[in-house]
C-alpha cells in the first residue's frame, strides 16, 4: 500500500480470530490507519489480498458493509448535527440497531445529546464515534485509536464496553499507540513499524522474552566509552548487551543472581551508580524498544 512513491504498508500479513480483540500497535505514522482503511475498503492495495469476514472489501463491498462497524480516527459527522441525532441517523440505516438510549446512557452522552457536533469535546466525539461503530450490531468493528483524547474515566468505560462487546461475540480490531491499552485489552497484538509487521503474539508471549531474562540498567551518569563491549566481556558470550542511550542499557542473558551481581560489580569498577537495576518481565514498551531501537511515544 503506497501513497505516491512513499510506501505506507508493505508485506503486512495479519489474521484475526472471531470474537477476539486484536490490537494493531505502533508509533504515529507506522501504517495503522492505512491498514485499517484497506480492510474497510477505503483504500485499494496495489498488491496482495485482503479478506474481511471472507469477503473482498472492494468487490464485495455491498455485502461486507452492513456487517462491519467503523470508528474513524476523527470526524465523520456534520458540524451542525446534534450528538444523539447523529447516532439515531446511523441507527436508522440498519435493520436491527441497538437501543440508542442505552448507548447514550452507557457512554455518558446524555449531557451533550443536543449539542452540535462542532461543540463537542474531543472525548465526547470519541465516545459518539464508538457508539456509531456499534449501533448497527456488527460482527466486526474497526476502531481507530478509540481512547485518544479521553480522560482516564472515559477510557476505563470504553475498555469495559469493548470487553463486553467481545464477550457477546463481536470481533474487535483496534489501533493504539498506548502499550497499556493493548496489554489490557488485546487477545493478540500485532506490532507494526514503518509499514511492516515486526512482532505478533499474545501480550504474554510478547513480554515473556524466551528463556532468558532482561535486565534493565539505568545509571546516574553517562557510561564510559566502550561500555557495552566491556560489560559483555564481563558477563560472558551468552549475554547480549544493548546501549539505549547514554545512561541506560538492556541486557539479555541467563536469568540468575550472579548476572545481577556481576552487573553491579562492573558498575562499581566503572564509576557509575545504578539507579535502576531490574530483572524480570519485559513490558511491551521494552519489546517495542528492542525491536525498533526507538521509544514508542516518539
Amino acid at each position, binding site marked *: 500500500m503506497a501513497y505516491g512513491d512513499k510506501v505506507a504498508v508493505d508485506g503486512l500479513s495479519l489474521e484475526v480470530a472471531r470474537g477476539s480483540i486484536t490490537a494493531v500497535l505502533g508509533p504515529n505514522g507506522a501504517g495503522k490507519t492505512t491498514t485499517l482503511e484497506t480492510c474497510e475498503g477505503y483504500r485499494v492495495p496495489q498488491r496482495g489480498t485482503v479478506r474481511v469476514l471472507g469477503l473482498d472489501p472492494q468487490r464485495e463491498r455491498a455485502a461486507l458493509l*452492513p456487517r462491519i462497524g467503523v470508528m474513524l480516527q476523527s470526524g465523520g459527522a456534520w458540524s451542525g448535527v446534534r450528538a444523539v441525532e447523529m447516532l439515531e441517523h446511523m441507527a436508522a440505516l440498519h435493520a436491527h440497531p441497538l437501543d440508542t438510549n442505552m448507548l447514550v446512557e452507557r457512554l455518558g452522552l446524555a449531557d451533550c445529546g443536543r449539542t452540535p457536533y462542532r461543540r463537542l469535546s474531543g472525548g465526547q466525539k470519541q465516545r459518539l464515534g464508538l457508539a456509531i461503530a456499534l449501533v448497527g450490531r456488527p460482527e466486526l468493528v474497526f476502531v481507530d485509536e478509540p481512547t485518544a483524547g479521553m480522560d482516564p474515566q472515559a477510557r476505563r468505560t470504553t475498555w469495559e464496553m469493548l470487553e463486553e462487546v467481545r464477550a457477546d461475540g463481536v470481533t474487535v480490531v483496534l489501533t493504539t499507540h498506548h502499550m497499556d491499552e493493548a496489554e489490557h485489552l488485546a487477545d493478540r497484538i500485532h506490532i507494526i513499524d514503518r509499514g511492516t509487521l515486526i512482532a505478533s503474539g499474545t501480550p504474554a508471549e510478547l513480554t515473556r522474552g524466551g528463556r532468558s531474562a532482561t535486565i534493565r540498567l539505568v545509571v546516574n551518569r553517562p557510561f564510559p566509552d566502550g561500555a557495552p563491549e566491556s560489560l559483555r566481556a564481563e558477563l560472558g558470550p551468552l549475554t547480549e548487551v544493548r546501549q539505549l542511550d547514554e545512561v541506560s542499557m538492556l541486557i539479555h542473558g541467563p536469568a540468575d543472581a550472579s548476572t545481577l551481581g556481576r552487573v553491579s560489580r562492573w558498575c562499581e569498577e566503572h564509576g557509575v551508580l545504578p539507579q535502576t537495576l531490574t530483572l524480570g518481565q519485559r513490558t511491551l514498551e521494552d519489546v517495542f524498544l528492542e525491536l525498533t531501537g526507538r521509544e514508542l511515544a516518539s
Partner: protein
Amino acid sequence: MSTPSSRTFTPAPGGAGLGPMVRAQARMEARLMLRNGEQLLLAIVIPVIVLVGGVAAAGRLGSTFEGHAPVDLLTPGVLALAVMSTAFTSVAIATGFERRYGVIKLLGSSPLPRHGLLLGKVLALLNVVALQLVVLVVVALALGWEPSLADPVPTVLGVLLSVALGTAAFASLGLLVAGALRAEATLALANLVYLLLMAGGGVVLPTSTYGAAGGLIQWLPSGALGEAMRSALVHADIDGRSLLVLAAWAALGTLLTARTFRWE
C-alpha cells in the same frame, strides 16, 4: 475474557433496506439544510427581498414590463432564483463540507450505498425547493401576483418541468464544484457564481432586458430556467428550447461529476 456475556451487543447485522435508508438520509439532510442560517438566508430571505424590493422599486418608477405588472413578471424569476440558490449553492456548500468533515467517508462504511446517498440528497433538495416555492408563492400572492391561469395545463406542466430540469442542472453543477475543490474554495465559488448569475444571468429579469448579451445569456442554465418559468407563468406556454438547454446542462453536469467527483 472475564466479562460475562450480556447479549447486549450480540451481532445482528444488516442494512435497513434502500427505501428506509434513503428516506432517513433525505430527512436528515433537509433538516440540516433548514437549520443552517446562511442556507436559509440564501433559500428564502434573499428571494423574498428581491421580490418585495423589485416590486416596490418598479412601482415607484411607475414602470411596467412589456405590458405586465412588475409582480407578474418578477415572481417567476424569483421562483427560478430560489431553485438556483438551493440546487446549486446550498448543495455545493453542504456537499463540500460533508467531504471535508468525513461525513461521506463515514456513510461510506454504512449500509447506505452511494446511489442511496445521492437519492437521499435529491429527495432532500426537492423537499426544500417545494417549501421555498410555497413560501414565495404566498408572498407573491400577498403582493398582488396574478399568475396566468387561463390555460392551466401548459402553465402547470411548464412549471413542473422547469423546476425538475432546473434542479437537476444546477444540482449536478453544484456537485461538480463540491467534488473537485476544497470546501473553502467551494464555498467562495458557489456564492460568487450565485451572485453573478442573480445579477446578470437572466434569472430574475427576462433575457430580453440584457440587450445584445441576452442572446448569450439564454443559453446559460440561469437564463434558461428564468425564461422557462416566465413562459409558463406569464404566457401559459411551454418554452421547449429553454427546457432543452436545461436538460443539456443537466446531462453535461452529471457526466462531468461522475468523472471527477472525489468522495473524500
